[in-house]
């Protein structure tokens, strides 16, 4: 499993939550699922990220009942969070395509 690039955890959390309200453990599973299990997220690092995003107003929380009938805290996106996700997506796309382009360069093309 690959290590997470710095700064991408927030993006992944926002993306995961944008697909539907999730509790903390659910966010972890959803990220593993949508990244095909390639990225390794430290479990302890997830919660500070969630709390930070909530404090910044991108996530809202609500206590609900989990699949196995237990009380759990569910995270969902706020309007600001949705906007933030779009911005981060656009930024990531431009950065990653630039890097891909850079890596595909051949001596002959210079």
């Amino acid at each position, binding site marked *: 499993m690959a290590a997470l690039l710095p700064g991408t955890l927030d993006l992944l959390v926002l993306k995961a939550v944008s697909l539907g309200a999730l*509790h*903390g*453990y659910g966010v*972890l599973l959803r990220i593993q699922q949508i990244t095909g299990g390639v990225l390794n997220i*430290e*479990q*302890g690092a997830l*919660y*500070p*990220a969630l*709390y*930070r995003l*909530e*404090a*910044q*107003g991108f996530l809202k929380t609500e*206590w609900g009942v*989990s699949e*196995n009938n*237990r*009380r*759990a*805290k569910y995270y969902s996106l706020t309007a*600001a969070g949705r906007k933030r996700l779009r911005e981060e997506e656009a930024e990531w796309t431009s950065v990653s395509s630039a890097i891909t382009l850079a890596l595909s360069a051949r001596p002959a093309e210079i």
Partner: protein
Amino acid sequence: MLLKGLIPMLRGLRDRERFEAGLNEEIRFHIEQRASDLARLRGLTPEQALHEARVEFGGQETVREECRRSFGLRWFDELRQDLAYAIRTLSRRPAFASVAVATLAVGIGGNTAMFSVLDAVILKTLPVRSPHELFLLRHDSRIGLSQRYSWPFVQKLSNAIAPYGQAAAMTRVNSMRLGVDSNGPRATVQLVSGDWFDVIGVQPVAGRFLSADDNRTEGAHPVAVVSAVFWRQQFGDAPFATGREVRINGYPLQIIGIAPSAFRGVLLERPVDVWAPLMMQHQIGHKNNFSASNARPDQPWPSQDNIRWLEVTVRSLSPPSTMDAALNSGLQWDMFKSASEETRRSARLRLESFSRGFSNLRTEFGQPIYALVATVTLVLLIVCANIANLLLARASERSREIAVRLSLGAGRGRLVRQMLTESLLLAGSGAAAGLAIAYWAVGVLSQAATHVGATRLDLKLDLRVLAFTMVVAVLSVVLFGLLPSLRATKLEPGPALKSGSREVHGSSRIRVAGVLVAAQVTLSVVLVSGAALFLHSLRNLASFDPGFNASNLLLVRLDLDPNLKEGALAEYLHSLVERVNAVSGVQSSAVAVCALVADCTNSTTGFILPGYTPQAGEQITFQTEAVSAGYFATAGMKLISGREFSWRDGANAQRAVIINDTLARRYFGGKDPVGRIVSYPHEPDMVIVGVVNDARVNGLHTPAVPMIWRSAAQMTSISGPTLHVRVDRGSPRMMATLRQVISGMDARARVSGVTSVSEQIGLSLWREYLLAGLTGAFGALALFLACFGLYGVMSHSVARRTPEMGIRLALGAHPQRVLWQTMRESLTLVAIGLAAGIPLSLAAGRLVHDLLFGVTTGDPLSVMTAAGLLLGSATLAAYLPARRASRVDPVIALRYE
């Protein structure tokens, strides 16, 4: 972003327990879910799975702390920790904490109280629309003419400046009889022109205000506007209705409107009850504060151009230069019809800011208030220096603890913050106690303001004042807390730990402490010498010979029947005086229109002195007064030449006047003026029958001006005169007796008040008492704190050097020598402080020179007294630790090491 984050954070603060519980539950849920997944996927037993899940998750407390920090709660947690720590450390040092809080309370409380005075008297603007557009009309002319104007002139002015602004006229505020009974309640009345409210910029809360149509014809507008407070006093909660009336000096006026409760007129310390059109001047008997030349003051004033009785306020809507041009485009020549051509040409009109209205307090107490603000600021600085010193001493005692914490990895910023929290706690407690002191002081000062002619002064601890207190508290933390905390944490942990329990960088600490002590000495010298100056001035005033005899002289203010006129008046006054003289314990008595030292300066311009040639443009102005026979003997003034009035100087005799020495010398050269004539247009000639010594009849502060007394028995009418009674002993019982005798005589005179001249003089010295008292008290505090600081520093230095002293004594040093060496250290600090403080004191003395009486500029005597006092007390404060040093037992001192 920041705001959005603030809301969940505040929610977290409010519901801290819920936050923690939620966090715990969330992590527990996570781990259990993970465990059940692990059990399913890897076939582990529940116990193994739970263990595995916990290991995968990592340190839970670290995660929790990270979450708190992410959520913005860490800052708050640390603050709470710091506060708890500060409370713990401070409660271990109750003596230090209480000295710090008590001195801060005095410092901050004094500043808060003085700020509330400064704000109310000097800073606050009138509660009206755009107060900064308001101005007061003033003029400069070659000879000092009173700053009052006639109504015809105001109208001309109004027209001249019409395109650039608006002008309105008003009288000063007078207390008048409400109703018919002269002993009944009184109201404060101000006469204003029709558009005055409009120009000032206030709106009625009920009814309407005066308009130009309410001020057209003399005597034809019996209407009035009243204040909200007055309406409530008179009619309770009744809503406004037309048809109510108010009687002023017996004359009925119909109430047409009520002013808003925030607006009590433009004279700060005399809230107005009733505003009436100035066309009603004659009807309601407004007779004070005017200057007349060649005029008939007994006739209605508004139409007379030679009676100047109005002050003019202008709302200017144009740049100052435009307005100035409009004012001085020939208009200024119309100001004084009777003045010479040249005088009128030299006159110039100008505008003065009126955004804060009038205030006698501001005029008289503006400078003292600034002086006291400076005093309390100095006191707070001294308090801060003192606490900084105490904190420095504490920090060096804690240096080992601090070194341990630094070496264990505590951040320096964190430690500084912790120490500042402690300072903040001190300042906060000091500010809270200071507010209590300020609340009390403000009550005392409001009360005291009534002694100096303010019927009401609104001193409140409002939001502005509270904000000021907070700023002062935070500033003082910066002043006393920052330096010690920065120094305390600037440590090399290694040497600090190695030196065991003993403090490190002791000598440099003592250097800083020494600077602080010297600074305290400097500031204290300034304060103490200021107090000495004011005390010296007060003593000069209190022992000053005013030119009359103030002791055992009683003043009985009378309300006379207005129908007493001409001959009947003279006869009545004569009988009154004779009956009072018959009272046992009374030596003599006499009637005067104005009471001594009451500062009712009536002056008249336009006298003619045959034989005296006025210079070009000169107008002859005398202070005028009317007194009965026996007045000068009763007052204890001395006749230089001629005679006193007698009861024969009555209606049928030639008009007699008595003048003072200043007048005699200025207008009659060296010759005896007795027998010479003084005349005044349209009046019979007056002959000078006597010359009396110059006396400060207007109060101790006011030197005598040329003054002329007329015989009261030759006046056509007198309202509200004062009976001056010389008695054997001016006791309260005597006052009661006089009141009783006069009230029992007949209904034509009523006593409206009894006081004594010495009491009045005491009140007129209130400003001096206040300044001397407050600066004296603060000076004493400063002196105490400076000595306390010096004592603390020297004790510390001696304690630190006990082993050294012990060795020196053991080696045979003479105790006297050790004593002297230690003393020398302290005295050097004091000398440095004095060297800086003495020139500063001399400079400060020059700043307050206008407030001093009979004290030479910078008064070296007061400054030297202060310096001597400081040196004496500081020597004592330094002597005690030095003596301890010289008596160190070498054996104990060395064992200590």
